[in-house]
């Protein structure tokens, strides 16, 4: 009798577990032209980013969020999601390293998708009232649009392991630095900022902090940070901090600036100041080719 009860209970447990599993029927979204075509798809985005809000514009979307881009990539490869939101340079970078992936741009106002410039652009984050803001805006205004897109292009190449001989944005390190500019970024968001461990790539900067010897940061954000520091006549120190730790680090005064591909959204503006936008791009949906 006991045996039968045990068997029935075990069977019930297995059945209830099976019922919990989502149906894995994935959608083919490769032909989508507007966000209406993505209706009902399983789309994910990084937690705590504007992307996670943006994806709610897709009708009847099955939205989810994951803590970082590698988790999103893994979920897509495993077939857990149909696609995930990223910025175009990131998508380009990922698709170069993974042949079976492609992306659809959610071009602003063209595909039924709306976002403000503050949402799709990225800016330097500073502590509220920091006097450096005007100076940094002045420095950023000196970088022409072509240089910005050329630099981003080069960073995508470097991140994919291709050779680049000379960077589009270069500046002289100050002979007599007047101080140190401490900059925080994730170092985990190629091509904006990533970590080199074995061989530092062209233009990479050592990551500061205990136990970080032999680790280098590179990417678009690093080059912008280097340019700003040089033009301010300051030394540059890069700190690798988790996405959720960036604003606390700035608030506490541990770092002077966040240069981490961060968009100056209204919610963040309430906590910290932002400079002018130093890069802007489209949001895209990365998907797996069938």
């Amino acid at each position, binding site marked *: 009798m006991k045996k039968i009860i045990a068997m029935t209970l075990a069977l019930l447990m297995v059945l209830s577990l099976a019922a919990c599993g989502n149906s894995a029927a994935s959608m083919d979204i490769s032909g989508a032209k507007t966000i209406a075509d993505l209706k009902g798809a399983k789309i994910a985005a990084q937690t705590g980013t504007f992307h996670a809000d943006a994806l709610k514009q897709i009708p009847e979307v099955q939205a989810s969020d994951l803590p970082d881009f*590698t988790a999103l990539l893994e979920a897509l490869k495993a077939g857990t999601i149909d696609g995930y939101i990223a910025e175009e340079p990131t998508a380009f970078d990922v698709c170069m390293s*993974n042949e079976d992936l492609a992306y659809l741009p959610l071009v602003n106002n063209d595909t039924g998708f709306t976002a403000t410039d503050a949402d799709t652009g990225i800016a330097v984050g500073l502590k509220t009232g920091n006097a450096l803001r005007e100076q940094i805006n002045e420095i950023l205004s000196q970088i022409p649009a072509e240089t910005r897109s050329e630099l981003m292009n080069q960073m995508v190449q470097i991140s994919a392991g291709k050779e680049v001989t000379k960077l589009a944005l270069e500046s002289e390190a100050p002979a007599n630095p007047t101080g140190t500019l401490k900059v925080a970024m994730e170092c985990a968001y190629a091509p904006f900022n990533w970590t080199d461990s074995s061989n530092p790539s062209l233009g990479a900067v050592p990551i500061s902090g*205990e*136990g*970080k010897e*032999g*680790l280098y940061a590179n990417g678009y954000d690093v080059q912008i940070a280097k340019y700003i520091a040089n033009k301010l006549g300051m030394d540059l120190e890069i700190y*690798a901090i988790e996405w959720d730790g960036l604003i606390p680090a700035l608030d*506490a*005064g541990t770092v002077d600036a966040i240069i981490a591909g961060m968009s100056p959204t209204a919610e963040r503006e309430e906590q910290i100041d932002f400079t002018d936008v130093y890069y802007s791009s489209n949001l895209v949906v990365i998907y797996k080719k069938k």
Partner: protein
Amino acid sequence: MIQFFQDAANILSEHYPFLLRGVGYTMLIALVGTLAGLLIGLATGVLRTCPLSKNVVVRWLQKIANGIIAVYVEVFRGTPMMVQAMVIYWGYAFASGGNTLPLIPSGILIVSINTGAYMAEIVRGGIISIDNGQFEGAAAVGMTHWQAMVHVILPQVLRNILPSVANEFVINIKDTSVLNVIGVTELYYFAGIIKRQTFQTFQTYLVICVIYFILTFSITRILRAIEKKLQVTDSFVICGSQSDPNAEIRVVKKPEVPND
């Protein structure tokens, strides 16, 4: 399948200096954290099991100390270590105007105080599990509470709680991985760096998983060997004389008939 293991082997051969450094910091933080936690546990355990003094002032001090220890144990045992890490690390940064604690020592500090809260309960349990007759026996030969603790109770407690301490050590080896939220470069932190460089999430974590298992498994084997060594299988007899205070007192392993 072969490709998969090749990828895993490549991760090992290309990134081993960083993996080794990660293992080093993981073991350093886990080892020092567990030992410091054990010391905290011993101190709090002895304090909490101390009988209340007859002196009114000392009795109140004891009560206050017991209250503080109870709050410490409940708070640090009842909140996740990852949250404690964030609160302590960034809390210090806010309080000190932007200075941060050095990463490895703050990792050790966080693991120590977290483990200390668990150890406090483990040691307390160890002390109250010792038969009351031992305290009475120690008191009968004129030992103070402190002497009884140091010479009679604690040696037995340490031997009895060794399996629980080993358990905490193994848990700490694994739990140091949560310190990556404040950027401590332990093993899991390097897994993050490697997976982002190689885009091979699953392979990277499999390699890390095997490394963690080797670490914990070898530690459990070593501690099991120590436990065996400390095990007492023989019974002892104290030989002396009830009438002659100058008679030689001997401790012998097997019962034997004293020939006097």
